[in-house]
């Protein structure tokens, strides 16, 4: 019966997240460790699988509407997968306590990002033909809903790559998509239009997560009966739930999520110091 609870929990987290256009990956590990009492390593393994599932299942419409910048994605994926590889090796050296602490920090950053809404980057630069982004032919355009083409330029590639390395590292260590870290990198360093940055980040998350999932799998650290229902629940929740729940007031839901993130951060902080509650569910 636990399978159905796992499916249900992932479904609800993903459906609610979908209303705000937010990935549910960050909720999976706290849900599994706090309510299902799995080890944090088992939770991370299950979570990373559901992160791949959500990225792959939602990518197609973005690619078809040409919002995904394919070249930029594969370039940045060298950095995110290298980061993920480093995370896999670091994971053996890092204590469970540190993982809980790191997760607490990422939950708080997410809460803060959820409160402060993203602003469109101001494009103030002229086409600089000498920049690395120009030489790598990264500038592109995308069509809006009216069919008009919007050209955009890609900003600071070296800075973007270093931030992506960090995002890949955190993704592997914590089993999250770490969109929360990719988005500032894309907004501030690369200065992409919001739609392009969301689509491209979502596209890259799958490969980044696969880089660590492949390693966890070959180590035998992915528990099939945990990862399966969680991945299925997340995908079905993202596809169906968001549509069913569109009537929910987005502003109130946003505040609710901020509260949940802070609460989960508090719980994870307690776990950092070895205090566990709420006990059994």
């Amino acid at each position: 019966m636990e399978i159905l609870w796992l499916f249900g929990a992932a479904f609800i987290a993903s459906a609610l997240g979908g209303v705000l256009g937010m990935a549910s990956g960050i909720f999976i590990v706290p849900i599994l460790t706090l309510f299902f009492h799995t080890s944090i390593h088992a939770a991370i393994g299950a979570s990373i699988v559901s992160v791949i599932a959500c990225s792959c299942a939602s990518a197609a419409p973005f690619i078809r509407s040409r919002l995904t910048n394919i070249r930029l994605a594969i370039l940045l994926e060298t950095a995110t997968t290298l980061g993920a590889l480093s995370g896999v090796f670091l994971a053996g050296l890092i204590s469970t306590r540190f993982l809980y602490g790191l997760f607490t920090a990422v939950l708080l950053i997410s809460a803060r990002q959820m409160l402060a809404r993203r602003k469109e980057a101001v494009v103030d630069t002229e086409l600089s033909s000498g920049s690395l982004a120009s030489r790598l032919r990264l500038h592109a355009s995308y069509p809006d809903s009216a069919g008009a083409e919007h050209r955009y330029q890609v900003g600071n590639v070296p800075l973007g790559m270093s931030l992506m390395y960090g995002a890949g590292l955190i993704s592997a260590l914590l089993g999250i998509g770490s969109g929360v870290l990719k988005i500032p990198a894309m907004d501030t360093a690369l200065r992409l239009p919001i739609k392009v940055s969301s689509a491209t980040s979502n596209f890259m998350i799958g490969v980044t997560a696969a880089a660590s999932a492949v390693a966890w799998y070959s180590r035998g650290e992915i528990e099939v009966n945990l990862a399966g229902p969680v991945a299925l629940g997340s995908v079905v929740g993202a596809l169906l739930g968001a549509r069913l729940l569109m009537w929910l007031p987005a502003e109130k839901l946003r505040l609710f999520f901020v509260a949940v993130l802070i609460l989960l951060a508090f719980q994870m902080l307690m776990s950092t110091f070895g205090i566990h509650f709420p006990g059994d569910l």
Partner: protein
Amino acid sequence: MKHAENHRAIALLLSWGSTLSMLLIAAGIALTLWPLPPFSGSDIVRAGILVLILLPVARVMLMLAGFIGQRDRLYALIAVLVLMIIATGAWLG
């Protein structure tokens, strides 16, 4: 136009691949709840998870094929690099 066609292939691969893996996982879960020997529910779930993990890798391979088709050496090389990094993780993992 070759460019756009490769994009379409990538979109198709990801949507069909994720649908296949979700169906396998769902079937596996159903068999775990209502066993039907000789099938093993968790083996089928495992197969679904494997499809899922390998799907992004297949996606990079497809992109590599696209770059080769466009004679885009630089980006073909970048795609090979990503594949090598992932393979290193699997091998040393």
